[in-house]
């Protein structure tokens, strides 16, 4: 009797290797398509798949085949009213009235279109990007440890002594060690009682028995009540914990000089950073801080859409960020990322203060701080930051003036260390 084999659970995605090879072969086209998608897409739709169009000629597999021409005879079913010798106009393409070769994708002679899944899209999108100084977040150097109970051990510090366990061990040991002697003792005692009951007993026998009993009792008494080998300690092990939480501070200038276009640029920058962080951390908090002359923490809606006017004091936002980080996001638990977008306009006395704030308070807390200037002209804030970025690795500054520049800027900011720009 043959068995029916259930293969439903086995060998799923058998074709995945083939798909990988297909994607690999058309990497360039896919990269281009992804780049275009990133440039053109709405921000909220960023984490989606994308239809990729590849020209037919790029994926065709040529084989020798017959072309049009020459003479050929074909047979068709369903003759309606033709008689021998009838002449029929040649249909266009000369395919002899047939439906033509169906193209393999059902798309006619257009491009070969296929859908890149969200994961694959993001994969290409983030291709050869990596977190800066990622090594620091690697497990080996993670400062955070968590202690776990891990059963009991026979050595440890007195404060970890487990009394019940230790006593249980002691009782067991005492029973085990004294077992033979105790059995003997019981036997002799019974004998003694029997002897005493016997009227004609020999006093010497009685004496001998009593002596043996005394010796046994002494031996039993010598078994220690608690021995060092009985002691059990609670075992605790320290397990390194990769930090899986990150907080991202979005700092944006909402003063009058930041128009919608500039805000949009900033927004793309933040979203990209956010998407990027989602790939590395399980939990990500975002703190939105907007500022003009004063800074305030707001929700996302207000951050991007509320309009404010007024002058600009950048340091106010930095002060607020530092305050929030200190109170709510201890560095032992959180990876802190800062992203600041501004048009570079600042009250001129404030820029120096920004620099010192960053250098002394904020950068030590941050894994990374990125500054994006959405305007071309270099003002004193840019100069200060430039000077500072030369000194430290955790500060990156860039300029971008239109949406298409965001993507390369982003790549640049977080490019893998060592890989060419």
């Amino acid at each position, binding site marked *: *009797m*043959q068995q*029916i*084999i*259930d*293969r*439903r659970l086995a*060998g*799923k*995605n*058998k*074709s995945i290797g*083939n*798909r990988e*090879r*297909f*994607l*690999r*072969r058309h990497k360039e086209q896919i990269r281009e398509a992804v780049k275009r998608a990133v440039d053109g897409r709405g921000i909220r739709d960023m984490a989606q798949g994308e239809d990729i169009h590849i020209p037919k000629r790029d*994926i065709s*597999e*040529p*084989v*020798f*085949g*017959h*072309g*049009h*021409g*020459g*003479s*050929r*005879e*074909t*047979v*068709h*079913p*369903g*003759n*309606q009213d*033709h*008689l*021998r*010798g009838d*002449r*029929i*106009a*040649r249909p266009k393409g*000369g395919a*002899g*009235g*047939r*439906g033509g070769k*169906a193209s*393999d*994708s*059902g798309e006619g002679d257009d491009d*070969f*279109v*296929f859908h890149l899944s969200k994961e694959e899209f993001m994969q290409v999108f983030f291709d050869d990007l990596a977190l800066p100084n990622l090594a620091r977040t690697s497990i080996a150097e993670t400062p955070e440890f968590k202690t776990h109970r891990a059963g009991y051990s026979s050595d440890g510090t007195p404060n970890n002594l487990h009394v019940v366990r230790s006593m249980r061990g002691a009782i067991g040991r005492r029973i085990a060690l004294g077992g033979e002697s105790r059995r003997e003792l019981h036997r002799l005692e019974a004998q003694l009682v029997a002897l005493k009951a016997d009227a004609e007993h020999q006093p010497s026998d009685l004496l001998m028995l009593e002596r043996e009993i005394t010796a046994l009792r002494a031996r039993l008494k010598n078994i220690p009540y608690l021995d060092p080998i009985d002691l059990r300690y609670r075992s605790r092990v320290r397990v390194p914990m990769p930090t899986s939480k990150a907080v991202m501070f979005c700092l944006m200038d909402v003063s009058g000089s930041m128009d919608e276009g500039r805000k949009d640029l900033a927004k793309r920058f933040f979203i990209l950073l956010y998407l990027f962080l989602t790939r590395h951390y399980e939990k990500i908090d975002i703190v939105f801080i907007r500022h003009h002359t004063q800074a305030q923490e707001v929700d996302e809606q207000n951050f991007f859409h509320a309009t404010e006017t007024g002058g600009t004091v950048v340091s106010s936002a930095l002060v607020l960020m530092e305050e929030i980080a200190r109170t709510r996001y201890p560095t032992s638990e959180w990876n802190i990322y800062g992203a600041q977008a501004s048009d570079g306009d600042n009250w001129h006395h404030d820029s120096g203060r920004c620099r010192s704030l960053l250098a002394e308070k904020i950068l030590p807390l941050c894994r990374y701080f990125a500054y994006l200037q959405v305007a071309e002209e270099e003002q004193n804030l840019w100069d200060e930051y430039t000077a500072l970025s030369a000194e430290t690795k955790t500060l990156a500054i860039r300029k971008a003036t239109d949406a298409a520049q965001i993507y390369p800027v982003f790549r640049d900011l977080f490019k893998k260390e060592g890989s060419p720009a």
Partner: protein
Amino acid sequence: MSKKTAVLIDETPDLFNDPAADLAITAANRVLRAADIQTPVRAAQALPAPNDWSFELIERYHSVIRATAQRYGLDTYPNQLEIITAEQMMDAYASVGMPVNYRHWSYGKEFISTEKNYRRGHMGLAYEIVINANPCISYLMEENTLAMQALVIAHAAYGHNSFFKGNYLFRMWTDASSIIDYLVYARNYVTECEERHGLDAVEQILDSCHALMNHGVDRYRRPSKLSLAQEQTRRKDREAYAQQQVNDLWRTLPQKASKASDKLAEESKRFPEEPQENLLYFIEKNAPLLEPWQREVVRIVRKVAQYFYPQRQTQVMNEGWATFWHHHLLNTMYDDGHLTDGVMIEWLKSHTNVVFQPPVGHRAYSGINPYALGFAMYTDIKRICEKPTDEDRAWFPDVAGRDWLEVINHAMRNFKDESFIGQYLSPKLMRDFRFFSIQDDEAESEMEVSAIHDDAGYRKVREALSRQYDLGHREPNIQVWSVNLRGDRALTLRHVQHNNRPLDDGAQEVLKHVARLWGFGVHLESANSAGEVKKRWSAAAQS
């Protein structure tokens, strides 16, 4: 030159068990004649027919189908039924229906387009895939209803299976027992090559081989069988030996001072002495620059192409045979009281869709439906045997009135599409299908109806249809013509035009692939029937 001819003989031993007993019917006690068929007592109760299948129910249906098939003496490989999901079905589609195959991007492409069409609802998946292996593997799709599973079992596990075992082309050209092993070997070997030589190098060589796949089969000479053990143990020897032979092309030292007359003869001598039809074989054995592993990859592609060669030649016969038998088996089961009306209606609906032949000009028309034609032909042969008309007696004196089981078994075993149609297509069927043939000559401004389904046209239509299924007619005839041994080592291929039909535009691209494999320049000449070269293509050596 004796050495060279020796190279062209493939030394892989023939694994086919007993070539002498080839087409003899092996199983004892098999029913061979319809007259011997025993009709069992009608079943008291029909098999349960809920919509959803279960393993137990499939088993029960299967055992009844098996018993019915045995009654008709269907000779099959052992069956292995496997339940798979739609996604796995698409996987199987993408790797040309095989359960394993080497990895290549083109299969990924296939998968993507299959999946896309399926998701959009452009196409339903085939209900079944069956693999010519021993045991014969049939895939049952999870989504099918019980009635459909029964249909698939009858169609694939008994119809196709017996065809694979019986048809002479399959017996001669494929070895069902070793194909899976061979594909596993091929997959592992290609993976190993990818690791050792990089994905790109392997991909390039596979691309080039695929371009020549249709020209990598032996059409006339019986090929050696695939065999895993020999393949592996002999591979190393073969690689070394082949490399050594190739060196003949490189020879720069004169082979002894020979007489002037000999020299002349030598120079006029061609290489290869005879044109070669199997381009991949020629390349595998003679391409001067290929590394041993590349030769092995060429060989793998060639072997796989050879394995599929019979399938390409027996579409109508194979599908027709399977359709005829599922129709016949399930109907018999109904007559025996095993199937309920509901099951019958369900599979008949699907059967009707499968054998629908849209007429020319119909929106759905895309050539002749092999299921329809094949099913009609076997059914018609049975009719001719059982109730011949005078016309049938005149056209098929050997068949009319004979035992139908014997006749269709003979037909299934000893023909391919081309000869099957040439032999058995009856005037009645031509009328039923309303076949007509159209002559399309480039020189004429219009096409001409050359024959229709009437007395004057039957033979002509049948001939034309038979020719239409001739692979040699469908694919251009391209052969290795010569190698310039003394000059630039360029390889010349020759296309012999069939009815003056030219090659299509893909030729130049394919030629580049040939050049990649050959390592030196490649030329292609297209010659008409008079032997005049009409067109030339060239591809330079790729560095």
